[in-house]
Every structure is written in C-alpha cells, then in structure tokens.
C-alpha cells in the first residue's frame, strides 16, 4: 500500500520539479500567456551546463531589477571634485553593535559604500579596515566565503594596488548579492542595496558648502537611481525591516520631487573604437534649497540605518 502511494506520487513530484525548475530564478515573472502547444517532457533538472528539456508551454516576460553600485556613485562623486572626509564614514569599530541579521545587512550596505568611497579616493588603508569589517558582518550572515582570507592577505601584500581593491570590492558585493538571493534572503539583499545607496548619498552630500555645481547636478541625477533602488527593493518580499527602510526613504523621494527634469530625445552614434554613444536623454537641475532638503532627508534615513 505504502509502495503504491509512493509510485502514485512519483509523477507528481517529477512534474512539480519540472514546473519549478522552469519557473525559477526571479521575483517578478509576468506570464504573457502565449501557447506554443509543444510536447510535455518530464525532466528532473538541468544539466551542469545550464540547459534542459522543458515542459513549460507558456512564454513569459522576466523582469530583472538592478541599480548602479556604490562604487559607480563614488566614482561620480570623485570626478565632480568632491574631497574625501573620513569622519563622515560609519566607524568600523561599531560593527559589533549590529547583532540582528537585518541590522547586519543594512550596515553591510553602509560599510560597502564607505569601502567604495575609500577605494575610489585611494585611501587604501581605510579600505582594508572596512574590508575586514565586511568580512566579519558577512560571516555573521553566513556568507563569509564571499570574501576569502587569502584575497585579503593578497591585498595586504599589495596595499597600494587600487585596481586590485576595486576588483575585490566589486567581486565581493556581486557574490554577496548572488548568495543572498540563492539562499532565499532577497530581503537582506534589498537592505544591502538600499542602505548602500543611502550611505553613498550621505557621503556625497557632506560639506555642501564646498560642493561644485557639477556635484550638485550629479546629486540631482540620483533621482533616477533612487527610482531603481525603490523598484528593486519593492520587488522583494516585504519584511518588516525592508518595509521600514523603504518607508523612511519616502522622505528622500519627496525631497527629490523638486528636482527639475528636461526631457531630450535619445540618439545613437558610433565611435571609431566601435563603442556606441547614446546621446540626448534627460537633464536634471536643482536649486540649493532642494539639494539641502535632499541632504537633510538622506541624513535622517542614514542615522536610522547606523543606530
């Protein structure tokens, strides 16, 4: 009797496996509903090269979400003439104060932005200090293998190699995002991204009295990145911590509503190198009061992140 039940359950299990295998991989699938009328064939999973026979008959549109990384923002800040202010970073010695996984993920994002900022401004000693903090917080979250001790040692031996540090920062945060998603902790991945953006903006908006017009324009343009970050995080399961952070960020969204946008039609041309240039597009501007309101809203949210 038991044997018969198992036999009866087997096709169901295989079928479920096929369904799940074909439908996995993301958070926002929209089924377009086109019927191909293809044959159904049950398989237990993909081969090691990333392919398999499918049983799925309806096509879908997979919606991906992403946002520029803190290292891109830090690059932008540096190019617009800003200076490095170490006192603006969240103290590395505070890492042990973050004891819940939500606080650890939030401050992984904060420290990641601090690390990116230090790296781009060639403050490698500070960078190494923050890299050690990131390794420790990653360990607390159970994903410490995203940054091996061997890589840190390699970097210690090449302390002045900025490119190596940039590579390590970039690889570490890509691996972290991938691992958290794979572990079903997309909400934590969202906290890392959102807090990382807030910290990047906090650093960009310190010492506004010495900010160039270019930096103010770059701050205004972050209206689009904020939109990326909010959409990305809203696509994840809304845990209490993620919802709370996104709700607090609504004040920043409100401050950005006073940024003016002038739309321009996009064009495409090609350089001799073969690279394409996308011209046109929107331009952004904001008066000093708007930039200060953004800075103030960012500071409030950031205070909540690091407390």
């Amino acid at each position, binding site marked *: 009797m038991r044997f018969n039940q198992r036999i009866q359950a087997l096709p169901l299990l295989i079928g479920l496996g096929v369904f799940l295998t074909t439908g996995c991989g993301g958070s926002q699938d929209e089924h377009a509903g086109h019927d191909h009328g293809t044959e159904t064939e049950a398989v237990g999973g993909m081969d090691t090269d990333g392919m398999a026979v499918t049983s799925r008959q309806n096509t879908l549109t*997979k919606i991906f979400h992403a946002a520029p990384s803190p290292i891109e923002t830090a690059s932008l800040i540096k190019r617009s003439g800003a200076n490095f202010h170490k006192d603006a970073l969240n103290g590395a010695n505070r890492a042990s104060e973050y004891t819940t996984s939500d606080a650890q993920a939030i401050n992984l994002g904060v420290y990641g932005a601090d690390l990116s900022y230090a790296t781009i401004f060639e403050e490698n000693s500070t960078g190494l200090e923050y890299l050690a903090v990131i390794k420790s917080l990653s360990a607390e979250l159970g994903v410490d293998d995203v940054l091996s001790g061997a890589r840190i040692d390699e970097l210690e031996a090449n302390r002045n190699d900025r490119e190596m540090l940039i590579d390590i920062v970039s690889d570490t945060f890509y691996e972290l995002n991938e691992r958290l998603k794979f572990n079903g902790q997309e909400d934590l991945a969202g906290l890392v991204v959102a807090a990382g953006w807030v910290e990047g903006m906090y650093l960009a908006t310190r010492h506004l009295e010495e900010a160039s017009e270019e930096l103010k324009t770059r701050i205004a343009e972050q209206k689009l990145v904020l*939109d990326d970050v909010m959409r990305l995080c809203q696509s994840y399961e809304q845990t209490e911590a993620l919802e709370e952070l996104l709700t607090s960020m609504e004040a920043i969204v409100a401050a950005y509503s006073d940024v003016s946008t002038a739309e321009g039609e996009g064009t495409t041309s090609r350089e001799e190198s073969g690279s394409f240039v996308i011209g046109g597009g929107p331009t952004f501007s904001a008066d000093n009061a708007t930039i200060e309101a953004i800075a103030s809203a960012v500071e409030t949210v950031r205070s909540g992140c690091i407390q």
Partner: protein
Amino acid sequence: MKHTLLLLLAFGLFTTMAEAQCRSFTKKNCLSSLDGYIQNDNYNSAILIPGDEAELMLTFLAGQDYRLIICSHPVLGEVAYEINDAGGKLLFDSRKNEPDVNYVDFKVETTQQLQIRVQVPETRTAIMHEGCVTVLVGSKS
C-alpha cells in the same frame, strides 16, 4: 501529510538545483567577458525558453563606459537584445547593430534610465529546451 512533505522537499530541491546551475553557468561562461570592467552588484539570471523575453530597467551614469553582456546557453539560439530609452524609443538593436557578438560597449552623454529587452527566438522543434540567460552590466571610468 507525507505527500505534502515530499512535495515541499521536491520544491526546495528542484528550485535550488536549477538556480545553482544558472549560478555555475554564469561563473563559467559569462563573468570573464567583463574583464577590465567593474561588474554591477546585482545578479540577474533566469531560466528561459524559446519565445520568452526579459527586461531590465537601469540607470546609466554619464561619464562611465559600459559593457552590457547577454550571456545565454547556446541551446536557445541567437538571443537578441535591444536598448530603448525611458520613453520606449529604440536606440540599439543587436540584430542590426552587433549581430555577431553577445555584448555591446557604450556610454551615455547624460545620466538616464535605459530599458534592456532580451528576446529568446521561437523554435519549431518538437522538443523545446530551456536554458540560462544572464544579463551582466559592467562599468569603468
């Protein structure tokens, strides 16, 4: 009750297997194409079948050089991709502009959101395959 437990176990097992295989596919076949670029932190990979589409809306910053890679399993054929501006105007079509490679290098004159649209070609074969598709974005100053 036992069946429910078995179904839940199968759910976890097959989902994990497929995701692990896409991670492995991406590491093995895609990431090296971003050498010289700083990869975007976000991992975006999915299992698609012929006729499927994928979309990504992302802000690209002025002053950066970008490489966009659409890395797909060969079983899916020539996966096409387009870049549209935020208003939907077509700016780049891989079928016309870069038919032989799976990546495009570009920069933007002004910071703007662009929509990347990926299309897996239809097939007439009786047995249809699914495969991993990964969208990678790298930048450099």
